[in-house]
């Protein structure tokens, strides 16, 4: 019985080798593109998530994000190398693509296996495979194998949006909280007790000298309004109060107009705080506009600043702060009631805006859960 290689033409063997080898490289390229596409998809989603999150919470820096995202492409390249198809696999794929009914697989097996000529059909099969390879090479239809993937426009778009988002500066609140939470000490704790007292005295004097439009009014539940920042500041007040005597806290309600002198006084107070190493997350008058839950001064030209005494149960003060900065309204003097400026113009009740009356997100969430549970019980 003759050997197969003795019967068939060597040109046929070379032709099949060339064709299958070329197809193998193309298939490999496709695998690499496929892996890279997955890496791009993963990166796009991660980048978008990081970017969106960083708009609210400063979780990860752009440098760290890019470092994380570089893992996927590297891994895709490694996977592509590992998944390089063999000649047999390439022949299978060629058969599937060109509907050659396992011709190249059979031919490849016949050429690879050093067996004797088992069938009279073997040389004919090799010849058929060589003919088909010639035809396909002439038609250049190998390009069909390259066109498996379209450019991933959606993923690229997401990637661009993600990059744009992650390069956006993070909100000041988020950055401040981040910096404080990672800081070693809280400024209020750093200051000695006497310095604190002096500081608040200085602030009060500055406020009195500049006649700010602030007024402390007796505690009234009707006028109590709580925003997220104020809740946090109340909690801070409970924590930072050194003597533990305070059972009230002061919250701010923007109700009246501010004149230029008032704004100057506010800026003085804030600058005093900053000099003392205290960066209020929401300073008096200056940063109040940044809170989306409150109205801006431009929107309400008749608004005034008013201090309101709020009873605070020290024992029940629950705060998640991890040593945040104190706010000026947390200060409580030796008196229970402080008239910062008794010569303020009379309060215009009509213009009192119900600011900060909106339920917070957490409150809304609890409310919805509560009603949902009741509904389920019914």
């Amino acid at each position, binding site marked *: 019985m003759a050997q197969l290689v003795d019967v*068939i033409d060597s040109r046929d063997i070379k032709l099949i080798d060339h064709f299958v080898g070329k197809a193998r490289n193309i298939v490999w390229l496709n695998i690499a593109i496929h892996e890279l596409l997955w890496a791009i998809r993963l990166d796009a989603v991660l980048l978008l998530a990081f970017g969106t999150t960083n708009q609210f919470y400063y979780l990860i820096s752009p440098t760290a994000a890019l470092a994380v995202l570089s893992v996927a492409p590297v891994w895709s390249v490694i996977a592509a190398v590992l998944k390089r198809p063999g000649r047999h696999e390439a022949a299978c794929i060629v058969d599937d693509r060109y509907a050659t009914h396992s*011709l190249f697989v*059979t031919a490849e097996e016949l050429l690879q296996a050093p067996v004797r000529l088992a069938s*009279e059909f073997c*040389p004919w099969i090799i010849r058929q495979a060589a003919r088909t390879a010639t035809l396909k090479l002439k038609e250049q239809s190998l390009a069909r194998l390259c066109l498996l993937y379209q450019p991933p426009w959606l993923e690229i778009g997401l990637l661009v949006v993600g990059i744009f988002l992650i390069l956006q500066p993070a909100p000041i609140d988020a950055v401040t909280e981040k910096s404080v939470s990672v800081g070693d000490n809280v400024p209020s704790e750093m200051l000695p007790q006497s310095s604190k007292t002096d500081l608040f005295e200085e602030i009060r004097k500055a406020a009195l000298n500049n006649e700010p439009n602030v007024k402390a009014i007796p505690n009234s539940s009707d006028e109590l309004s709580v925003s997220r920042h104020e809740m946090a500041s109340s909690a801070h007040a409970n924590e930072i109060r050194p003597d533990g005597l305070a059972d009230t806290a002061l919250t701010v309600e923007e109700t009246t107009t501010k004149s230029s002198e008032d704004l100057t006084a506010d800026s003085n107070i804030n600058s005093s705080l900053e000099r003392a190493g205290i960066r209020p997350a929401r300073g008096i008058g200056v940063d109040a506009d940044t809170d989306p839950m409150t109205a801006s001064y431009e929107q309400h030209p008749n608004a005034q600043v008013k201090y309101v005494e709020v009873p605070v149960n020290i024992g029940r003060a629950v705060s998640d702060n991890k040593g945040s900065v104190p706010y000026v309204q947390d200060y409580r003097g030796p008196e229970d009631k402080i008239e910062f400026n008794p010569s303020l113009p009379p309060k215009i009740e009509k213009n009192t805006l119900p600011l900060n009356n909106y339920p917070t997100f957490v409150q809304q969430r609890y409310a919805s859960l509560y009603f949902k549970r009741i509904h389920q019980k019914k």
Partner: protein
Amino acid sequence: MNTLESLAQIENCIAQFQSDFIKLRDNLTRAIVGQDEIINDLIIALFAGGHVLLEGLPGLGKTQLVKALATSIEMPLSRIQCTPDLMPADITGSEILLKTSHDDEVRIDFRKGPIFSSMVLVDEINRTTPKTQSALLEAMQECQVTCAGVSYPLPQPFWVIATQNPIELEGTFPLPEAQLDRFLFKITVGYPSAESLFDMAGLVLDDEPAKRLSVVLSAARMLEMMRLVKQVVVSDRIKRAAVALILATHRDLSEKNSVAWRHIRYGASPRGLQALVKAARIKALSNGRGHVSIDDIREVAFVALRHRILLNMDSELDNIGVDVVLQEILQVWRKNMTHS
């Protein structure tokens, strides 16, 4: 003979096979209208030298198809009409006492039964008793009949084409699994399409359509074509695919909650694997190829495996047929083969 001449000869052989296959198919479609696929499967079984079980309702042309086939290939056909009182000796033959006229010598001689024919039509096989059905086992598997300790070889080629009716179950004896496994194909004959019925309405039904057919293949040519089938190359990948398909029909070898795990009690036998590959070879050759492809395996899988798979009780209660289960198995199998 140099290589080029040899290649041209092989090509010519394959082309001739394809041509003869198509000629036979066309001849049969003249007699049996609207059953092209069944005719195709029957011819494949014929070239594979396998036995066929035709299952279908009365009046669909099963018997006529077998008669037409025998006429087309010029093969002697004997018919056995199965009844409950049919005995094995009625099929295989029996020893009888003979007395010669010239010397008054009495001797026992074996009188051959209807099984001694190249093509045997066993009509309504499920109407006869298991005892008689079993008489066919040896003939179908070993192509011989043993009577009184003496084995008599059957003529070659030898085909048994049996028919059965799936609905009239009263007074019938379902074929045992061992008997079913000996059939290469189980072909389900369905209703023809509306166009085919329209064509049938125009036919003259005065005589049997098989009588109008001409011989298209001689017995010698048939044997030559059957030898050619053995030359078809089956690559290792195709063999592995066929094995994977057979194993996919086994409950204990398949994954939990897979189709086989849910529906099948017993899967296909190794004889089923041989039938699958053998039929795929003819399918490839009839398409002008010298090698088997995955699609050839898939196309013959239904006829080669449907009678070798035993469904569990739940599937039978849910009225889930073997073909539905096999279809699902083939889908999964084809996907796996593409990805592998």
